[in-house]
């Protein structure tokens, strides 16, 4: 702790001008920003780790500000575990959990949740599935049997599966309306291809959705929703001693329904070889949606901290280079950003913006200028700003029970070490310019990026071609979203 505090203070002093004035004067000195005292040390939440009789791990974090408790059952299986040809199985399984469970109907579950003043969500990412219940603490006893029914005894009624299937098919149809959705889906498909799991959205395609049966969902639930593959997070106005016996009553009897399914087996997608441009025609669109990038890195990347610092400089914050260039300098866009979507396997690296139609080519040019520029050494001031932005903003990510619970999920899903939060700030502050440049050179190679432009082809195509970035392929929306 001491070391990280010294580092924080050192960085701050480096940023504000030296020799500030004393605090207690009448009129403020506006000739330079105020000198700041050192930040309070981050008080990390203590995680009380328990285990139920059946082996289910329970992590309890106390937070007594508000009489609320959040329970999140995290299951280590998500879209990445979808069987071949069954893309969308994890997502639909999770969505079906509260559509009938135990003896409760879908409407009865919703009614119970609302009367409890609770919120209940069930969802999957590519890496995990989660059932999240937030409830006033005095109604916890009413909520626990409900949570157990939903998690352990989903009924998967055919009529509700059919309803959700139709909703999802309609959502896929509606995705064609939104240039931003089209761009995201087309980019994933182009970078990862139709076979790789990350080339298709979580809910799957029209074809795969139509192929999912209740048997598929039951099988997914039986294979992965098992005590050894799950962790129950409890954050809020309670203690482990109080809550664990109550959990034992509802979750202690939970037994595996069969053999545990395989861990996520998403392979690292083959990297793009050469740059290619895709223009997806959206006639008369007022803006062009840009997505530029390639296969990024997995969450287990050893260079995690240099990567997030480098990306903060490039496109992870308001004063990042992409936003300053596209928005503040040129006014081409409302905002521009970049991100590494790190999953169990390598997710995409993508730089993105919506830019005005008549400046599309200019904007793409500026994107490449910044993407190339990030490979050069980063000045100390800029690097320090990014590091401090991440490190000093870290405590705010632990403010509410929901914030805390979300941070804990990260530990569970990616099997991060117990001292991860303690190491976080020092690890950020330890990133050197050399390390940042190293990850930029390795993971930001603009000469091999896919460039997806969704916009008014007749206006933007000539300018985009004139950039001579590489082969240009023009597509309709239907072609871009083809199953």
């Amino acid at each position, binding site marked *: 702790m001491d070391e990280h505090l010294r580092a924080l203070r050192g960085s*701050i002093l480096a*940023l504000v001008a030296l020799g500030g004035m004393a*605090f207690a004067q*009448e*009129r*403020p000195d*506006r*000739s330079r920003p*105020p000198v*700041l005292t*050192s930040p309070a040390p*981050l008080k990390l939440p203590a995680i009380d780790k328990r285990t139920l009789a059946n082996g289910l791990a329970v992590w309890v974090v106390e937070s007594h*500000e508000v*009489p*609320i408790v959040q329970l999140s059952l995290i299951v280590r299986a998500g879209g990445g575990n979808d069987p071949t040809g069954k893309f969308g199985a994890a997502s639909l399984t999770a969505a079906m959990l509260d559509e009938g469970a135990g003896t409760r109907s879908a*409407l009865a579950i*919703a*009614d119970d949740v*609302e*009367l*409890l*003043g*609770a919120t209940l969500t069930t969802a999957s990412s590519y890496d995990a599935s989660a059932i999240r219940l*937030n409830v*006033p*603490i*005095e109604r916890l006893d009413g909520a626990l049997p409900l949570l157990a029914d939903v998690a352990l005894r989903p009924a998967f009624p055919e009529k509700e599966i059919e309803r959700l299937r*139709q909703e999802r098919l*309609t959502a896929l*149809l*509606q995705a064609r*309306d*939104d240039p931003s959705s089209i761009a995201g889906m087309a980019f994933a498909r182009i970078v990862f291809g139709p076979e790789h799991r990350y080339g298709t959205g979580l809910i799957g395609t029209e074809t795969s959705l139509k192929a999912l049966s209740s048997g598929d969902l039951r099988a997914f639930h039986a294979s992965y929703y098992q005590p050894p593959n799950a962790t129950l997070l409890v954050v809020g106005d309670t203690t482990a001693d109080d809550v664990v016996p109550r959990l034992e009553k509802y979750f202690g009897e939970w037994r595996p329904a069969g053999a545990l399914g395989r861990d996520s087996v998403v392979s690292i997608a083959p990297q793009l070889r050469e740059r290619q441009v895709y223009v997806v025609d*959206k006639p008369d669109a007022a*803006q062009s949606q840009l997505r530029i990038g390639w296969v990024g890195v997995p969450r287990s990347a050893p260079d995690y901290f240099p990567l997030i610092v480098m990306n903060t400089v490039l496109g992870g*914050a*308001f*004063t990042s280079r992409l936003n300053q260039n596209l928005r*503040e300098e*040129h*006014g081409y*866009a*409302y905002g521009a950003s970049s991100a590494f979507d790190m999953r169990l396997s390598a997710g995409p690296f993508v730089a993105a913006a*919506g*830019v*005005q139609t008549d400046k599309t080519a200019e904007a793409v040019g500026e994107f490449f200028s910044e993407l190339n520029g990030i490979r050069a050494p980063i000045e100390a001031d800029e690097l*320090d*700003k990014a590091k*401090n*932005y991440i*490190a*000093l*903003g870290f*405590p*705010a990510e*632990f*403010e*509410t*029970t*929901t914030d805390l619970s979300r941070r804990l999920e990260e530990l569970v899903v990616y099997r991060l070490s117990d001292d991860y939060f303690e190491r976080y700030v020092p690890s950020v502050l330890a990133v050197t310019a050399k390390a940042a440049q190293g990850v930029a050179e390795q993971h930001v190679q603009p000469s091999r990026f896919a460039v997806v432009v969704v916009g008014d082809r007749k206006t933007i195509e000539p300018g985009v071609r004139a950039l001579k970035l590489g082969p240009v392929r023009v597509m309709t929306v239907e072609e871009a979203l083809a199953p």
Partner: protein
Amino acid sequence: MRMRLPLALLVMSLCSLSLGAQAPSPATLEAPYTQFTLANGLTVILHRDASVPIVSVNIWYHVGSANERLGRTGLAHLFEHLMFEGSAHVADGAFDTLLEAAGASSNGSTDTDRTNYFIDLPANALELALFLESDRMAYLLETMSPERVNGQREVVKNERRQSYENRPYGMASIELDRMLWPQGHPYSWPTIGSMEDLTAASYDDIVAFFKTYYAPNNASLVIAGDIDIARTRALVEKWFGEASRGPVAPPPVAPPAVLTEIKRKTLTDQVQLPRLYLGWLTARAYAPGDAALGVAASILAEGKNSRLYTRLVYEMQMAQDVTAVQQGAALGGSFLIVATVKPGYTIEQIQKVVDEELDRLRREPPDRRELQRVLNQVEASFYRGMERVGGFGGKADQLNAYYFAGGGPDFHAEDLARYMSLSPADIQAAVLRWLPPDRRVELIVEPVTAPTTRQ
């Protein structure tokens, strides 16, 4: 950045009769505060919450798009953007750079009635926020320039393109306001402004706007979080004391707004599915009827068991989605019901069901359990709202919202009482009074081409 949300829709009730659980202690819903006014007229509200070592500096200027005039719409929001571009002692770009280097996050938003800004940052950096916030209050114009205005003009036009022109159904809300409110009413134009007016806004307009509305006596400052009250008061006096008092800002002028008939219109958009919008003019925020209509909206369309959701989305599956909302603002309110039609069905089929359900609420009160379900939800959501100090809708922002609404910053208990006291008959009466079948707006968005049918 901007957003347009109804004033504090955070509502609650302490009743929980159906479940027999005891009510949570109301003490946690209080936000004790210290309030004072500087000599220049700035209202200051301080609230200590040391649960996390962060602090939120939240300022509301009591001006929004309702203070604009036709021909200069969008000015309040364009001005909000300029507040981040630097002031006499803060160089171009330094506002955000200094804040990020301190681990801060900041943003601003404009609605019809007010413009708010927040800076959330580690408690040790409070004085940096006060320096920046006071400098743009006292010394914004010193370094303002036509180039700076032009730069943000383009950004805002792109914000409009991204949020309206290029978004599915994006133009509907603009059309809806134009139909609901009479011409010249300040709620009849969009806060984002028209493209023509954004082009027309001049440097002189910006200067005049600042001088008229951005004076300390037209603002309220809330500082909430891990603060020492006495020291913070001294710091506020030090940094904000030198801002000069301005003239009394002219209040917005609103002609009477009533609908006397059904107004119908159809727009076309590049979308797959038709969407129906029904709109009524209703109660102002916090006025009689506002809370009851908020509950009516939930009874109609919040959750799987709500009346419209159950019939349209769950059982008949004619609609992909349905929402209802009461939007109480300072000069008036509106109530909206919006539903998207699934392939194979029609607007008429949806509208028939909506009208049946509205008729049923006009004829008979909702049952007690139905009301209780809504009240339990809003009660719990209120507790959740007390957890976060900063950001939009956090405690600091809420204290400012209550202060601006005129009830005093810690209006939580009174706000709660508005909902607690509601009976099923109140809901019925509000629907009868405010949502008549023959005085409303009916806006339909149709696909440019016929939707793909699947059924």
